[in-house]
């Protein structure tokens, strides 16, 4: 499991726009680099990222090799109700890493 950083205010007022910052540890190997023997290092990147809020998708990203290693993505959402935010990163091989965070809306 890769290390993940997710940052957003744990409490928000109803209707407030909150900023969510996410970062996951990943080399994002482009597939364009050569190793010291001259062979191509195979591509290994996270190609998709999604965020759902109580089951409804609020943000989705498609990523290409031009994304930096340890991809950082910051976006926003409206705090509608208390519940859970699920963050999922999907790599080239279809492996999924999901993280769940709670939010309290007053």
């Amino acid at each position, binding site marked *: 499991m890769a290390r993940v950083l997710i940052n957003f205010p744990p409490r928000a007022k109803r209707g407030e726009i909150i900023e969510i910052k996410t970062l996951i540890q990943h080399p994002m190997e482009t597939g364009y680099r050569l190793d010291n023997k001259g062979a191509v290092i195979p591509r290994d990147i996270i190609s998709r990222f999604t965020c759902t809020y109580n089951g409804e998708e609020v943000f989705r*990203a498609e990523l*290409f*090799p031009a994304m930096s290693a340890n991809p950082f993505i910051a*976006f926003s959402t409206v705090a509608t109700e208390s519940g859970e935010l699920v963050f999922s990163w999907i790599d080239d091989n279809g492996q999924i890493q999901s993280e769940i965070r709670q939010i309290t809306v007053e």
Partner: protein
Amino acid sequence: MQLLLTRRRILLAASGIGLASFVPAAGATEEAMAGAIRDLTGEAPLAPGKVKLELPSIVENGNTVPLTVSVESPMTEADHVESIHIFNQKNPQPYIAAFHLGPRAGKASVATRIRLADSQKVIAIARLADGSFWSDSADVIVTLAACTEQ
């Protein structure tokens, strides 16, 4: 050491070794970028405006270039940004990322970090709910290109 590093950097920047060290088949061109944008917009016109793309004008390290895109939009059910697409001119592939949002985003603003293989133009395109496309571009000078170290 300090002097050497500086000289090496200057040589790197001057000779374009950055691109030469890529796998030869790779290398996006202006046409590749135009093609990728056409695949997205189709026949729809692409107008400058509404979108604001923020990138540093000079970056030391092309491996992590901070980027922020924001779009003027009320983000209501009827009038919102559906997606934001980022393209580049000279990396091996023209596409950098696509972000899909909607009225639940509240505001149309996304920040991330990208790789740039050379000094070049970066373009952000926003697709609005009414099907129109808007864009902004930024020129970036890269002194140490991404992908140079093996």
